[in-house]
């Protein structure tokens, strides 16, 4: 059985300019932030990023890594608008492909099932159709003949997700209330990396949670990264909640270039180990 353990650096070394990446989690919830921080330190650029966006999208936009962002929203949850995303968006820093939240799921699901598209009513009659000029309609072949939006498959080159627990084989377990769409990101991608709070023995999973929490199986994963605190400052319950104080400080840097430079020097221009140490020392 393969031991799929790897590191953030090795995972990010697989990225090439212009790739399409998907990032699991939702808003400021269980985001693979240690991998995002590694991408920020890398030279990769011109990414197409698919995300139920939080600080992952905000930081990647702020660093100019994003050519095109495919999203339904970018939020920090307790702070409704991600301020770095907002600033870059208003500066025209990237191509904004805004979709209905459900359409985003549909695109990932279509890719996961290797279908060209999935139909939906969502988007009809709204400017989603104008904002995304490549969206096409499809007519039901049955008697109803209804016209629907054909949401195209969102095929990903690489997917990154963060789980509470994993084993070295690539099985993953979420222990919080919602898996979000993390399984779909993995199934929609050619390469799949899962960071986790803790790598455990396979035999330990059912001591941590019920069988229903084992949503990620090893067919979905190529690399496993042990990253305690890897979702910080987003929440990763039950291991830890959102670091609201840290998040507020991060958000405030959007309005203050000096504060941003300090934040960047303290927390982003450093190794992950130093990041975690500095967070714990606060």
């Amino acid at each position, binding site marked *: 059985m393969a031991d799929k353990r790897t590191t953030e650096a090795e995972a990010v070394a697989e990225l090439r300019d212009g790739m399409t990446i998907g990032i699991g989690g*939702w808003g400021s919830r269980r985001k693979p932030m240690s991998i995002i921080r590694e991408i920020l330190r890398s030279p990769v650029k011109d990414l197409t990023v698919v995300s139920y966006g939080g600080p992952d999208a905000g930081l990647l936009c702020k660093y100019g890594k994003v050519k095109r962002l495919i*999203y*339904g*929203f*970018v*939020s920090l949850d307790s702070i*409704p*608008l991600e301020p770095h*995303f*907002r600033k870059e*968006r*208003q500066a*025209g820093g990237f191509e*904004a492909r*805004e*979709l*209905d*939240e*459900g*359409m985003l*799921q549909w695109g990932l699901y279509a890719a996961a099932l290797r279908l060209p598209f999935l139909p*939906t*009513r*969502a*988007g*009809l*009659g*709204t*400017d*989603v159709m*104008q*904002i995304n000029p490549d969206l096409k309609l499809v007519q039901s072949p049955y008697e*109803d*003949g*209804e*016209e629907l939006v054909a949401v195209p498959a969102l095929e990903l080159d690489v997917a990154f997700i963060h789980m509470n627990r994993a084993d070295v084989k690539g099985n993953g377990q979420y222990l919080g*209330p*919602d*898996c*979000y*769409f993390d399984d779909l990101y993995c199934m929609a991608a050619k390469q799949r990396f899962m960071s986790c709070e803790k790598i455990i023995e396979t035999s330990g999973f059912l001591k941590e949670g019920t069988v229903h929490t084992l949503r990620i199986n090893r067919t979905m994963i190529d690399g496993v990264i042990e990253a305690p605190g890897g979702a910080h400052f987003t929440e990763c319950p039950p291991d830890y909640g959102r670091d609201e104080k840290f998040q507020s400080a991060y958000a405030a840097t959007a309005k203050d270039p000096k504060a941003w430079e300090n934040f960047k020097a303290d927390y982003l221009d450093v190794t992950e180990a130093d990041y975690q140490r500095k967070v714990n020392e606060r």
Partner: protein
Amino acid sequence: MSDSTRAEVCAVAVAEAFRGDGEILVSCFGTTPAVGARLARLTFEPDILMTDGIASLLGNVDPVSGDKPEPVVEGWSPFRSIFDLLWNGRRHVMMFASQIDRYGNQNFACIGEHAAPKAQLLGMRGAPGNTISHKTSYWVPNHGPNVFVEKVDVVSGVGYDRAKALGPVTARFHEIPRVISNLGVFDFETEDNRMRLRSAHPGVSVDEIVEKTGFELVIEGDVPATAEPTDEQREILRSIDPLGLMNKEVRV
């Protein structure tokens, strides 16, 4: 005249928007809608379902401020289930509108042209799917001509003119029961589904509403005053929001 606050009047109007909804999920943006929905559930719509805002359906009613009781969880509602449920149609959402026009086209995506926005707002979020799939009402705590506009910059929620253009099959689940603002209650129960002033909140004149609305409202005869909370309702409202958070949300 009672000692109700404007927000309490709004909350009762919100509750009325959910009257008749029965056993469906009610989702709310904003404090006053959250209070109003709870009022409906505690009085005339006991079968309403609500989430804890995370991933549980709550079997009991949790106050929006003050001490929270131990939650009674009656179901699991991760986002994937919510998306399924909303396309299934058993839901009534009350969303914000940064802009809304006479047919109920709504925008909270951005201000200005979408390709180069002056202000990025929430984005499309679930508005396109919500409005084409189930009942959607709107809450506007800051009624003004910059919100009630002739033309919205971006259409995130479908209005009646656009629904009509989609045809009766595609638009068969589209319905905007109410728009509730800090000044009045509005609906689209007119021949051509233009927005109508349904009632003006006590202490607000029709003239003021007309002046603060950027398009021509349908006004039929004498406009009634929005109902004030009964003593019983007021007591319930104050148990739902003991700290009066909703009063901070509503511009008077």
